[in-house]
């Protein structure tokens, strides 16, 4: 059982405030991913939850107990570090046994838990090795194992895959998803990689500049981003944001063409931002088609599909998914067609989502 409640959490280093009041609830057995660009405060927030850094302001409750002044080792929380942070002078067995013994478990129980964990993580053969004698993926598994043997209520994982190569990364990602299903603890996972966030999370917390931008399921974030930051952060290539002005039920770029409003829009704004994902855009060479005028900049070929990037007359770059055999040349003039019902609207002033 683990329910976390963060209320108005602030963190200051000297005079710089890096977290400006975080409110968040995390339910039992949830897999929550903190995602955001570097410096957004996601790792800082994780360290506050772990207790490694003191909370400057606000309250953190774990199962209704105030945790602010509880030392890290007494919180029932285990953490997997980015660098794995294995004890270099202990072998794999000792690395896992160290924390378990400090919890006051007897010898037989420690042995039982390590046997169980090392079997689950395929570490049986490696128990007598020192961290230096292990590969990156093996170290990663030991770091996870060290957290598992303590049977914590909450697992914290700080960018656990960032030191692995691409092939290993997707393998370990599956492993972590499987572990969460099997052991069922509450997991909080920090990453800047949106693919990790989308594939692993029950709930994603998107952070930027020390604030939470949006909390929601991967589908919610992708389909109904709360603001233009979340809209462009989730999804690759990123959503294009086009500044448009409205005239009745038509929108247009000055000198760049007009189109019929693709979705219903109740908000009265005259000028706003149109957000379009690459799959909602079609390119055509027909100069008379009803759409925005653009010039091709370059095209990326990915085998199963391709992305073309084009510049609108107002300078905005947009990415569009094309068929892999549809070739565009740089500087070619195209018209951009937008699929009806696929547009997002954001306020031109503060970027928040405008009601449909």
């Amino acid at each position, binding site marked *: 059982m683990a329910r976390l409640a963060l209320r108005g959490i602030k963190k200051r280093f000297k005079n710089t405030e890096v977290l400006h009041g975080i409110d968040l609830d995390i339910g039992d057995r949830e897999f929550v991913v903190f995602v955001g660009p570097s410096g957004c405060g996601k790792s800082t927030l994780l360290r506050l939850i772990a207790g490694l850094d003191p909370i400057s302001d606000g309250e953190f409750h774990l199962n209704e107990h105030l945790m602010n002044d509880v030392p*890290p080792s007494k919180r029932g929380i285990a953490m997997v570090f980015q660098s794995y942070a294995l004890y270099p002078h202990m072998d794999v067995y000792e690395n896992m046994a160290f924390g378990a013994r400090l919890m006051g478990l007897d010898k037989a129980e420690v042995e039982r838990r390590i046997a169980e964990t090392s079997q689950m993580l395929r570490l049986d053969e490696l128990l007598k090795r020192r961290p230096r004698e292990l590969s990156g993926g093996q170290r990663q598994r030991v770091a996870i194992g060290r957290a598992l043997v303590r049977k914590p209520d909450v697992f914290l994982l700080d960018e656990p895959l960032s030191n692995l190569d691409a092939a290993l990364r997707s393998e370990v990602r599956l492993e972590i998803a499987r572990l969460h299903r099997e052991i069922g603890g509450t997991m909080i996972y920090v990453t800047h990689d949106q693919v990790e966030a989308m594939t692993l999370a029950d709930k994603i917390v998107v952070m930027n500049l020390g604030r939470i931008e949006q909390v929601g399921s991967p589908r919610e974030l992708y389909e109904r981003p709360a603001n233009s930051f979340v809209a462009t952060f989730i999804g690759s290539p990123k959503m294009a944001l086009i500044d448009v002005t409205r005239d009745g039920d038509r929108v247009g770029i000055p000198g760049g063409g007009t189109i019929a409003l693709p979705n219903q829009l109740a908000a009265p704004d005259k000028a706003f931002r149109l957000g379009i994902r690459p799959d909602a855009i079609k390119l055509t060479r027909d100069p008379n088609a009803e759409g925005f005028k653009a010039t091709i900049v370059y095209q990326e070929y990915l085998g199963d599909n391709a992305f073309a990037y084009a510049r609108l007359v107002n300078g905005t770059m947009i990415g569009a998914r094309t068929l892999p055999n549809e070739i565009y040349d740089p500087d070619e003039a195209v018209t951009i067609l937008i699929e009806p019902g696929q547009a997002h609207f954001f306020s031109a002033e503060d970027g928040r989502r405008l009601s449909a």
Partner: protein
Amino acid sequence: MPKLRMTGRGLWITVLLAPPLAFVALFIVYPIIAAFAYAFFDWQGLMRGEFSWLDNFHTVLFVEPYASWTRNAFTHNIMVFFALLVLQNGLGFLLAYALWRDMPGARFHRVAVFLPVVLSTIIVGYLWKLFLHPLFGVVNQSFRGLGMPWLAQPWLGQDSTALWALIFANAWHMVGFPTLVFLAGMQRIPTEILDAARMETQSEWVKITKIVWPLCAPSATIVFVLLFVGAFNWFELPYIMAGLDGSPYGSTDVLGLYFYRTAFGNVSSGQQDFGLGSALAVLIFVFIAVVASIITVRLRSREIEL
């Protein structure tokens, strides 16, 4: 065979290397070899006599009064070593830990702890001789001023306290060195490893003994070996503070003083014996070299790469 040709660069290197090499050969290598040789001859003052095999070694180790002098001095060196191991290296480790954990005022104390190390031993010796003066010294004045007159002892003047006073002065002088070496060692420990330990225990004791200490092993090797060599070569401080005789009554006599006295004579006895002196020097040298090598090899084996 490749021809050796003198290039401009080679010439420079030769010119720069030759003087120090000559210096080392003349004043370090030659005396060591000479001392080895001298130890096997019978000496009348500065006059070399017959080759006497191992007689000198036998005399300093087994013939009275030399044998008990040697034993006395050697015992004191051992005491100095173990006392400094605790007072200097042990305290240095704890100081380093405190400085490393960035307690308030850590910046100031880092400088303060290391400052005495840069002072010359001569200055420290005379300074502490003044501090420990039985009547006017700041130590006894302070004890009297604090209402603890029974602690106002003639520290350097009685055989029960003199050696400890010297050990204390030495620890005050040098504690900054192991502190600095340990601090450097601790700063090499990745912070995430310490964070990982903090997730598992809040006990400073566990963190120090199970994580920090083992990971500081390379620093420990350095200060341990250097202390061992220093303790058995101990000379300047006792020479300045206690004199060549290790006064009072030989209670501060150590191998360094004893060797110097035997080889070169002292104020009260003009007797010089290069043979016995050299034999002592060779024994000290061999003892330090052998034990220090064993210690180094043993300690190295428990070091791990971070």
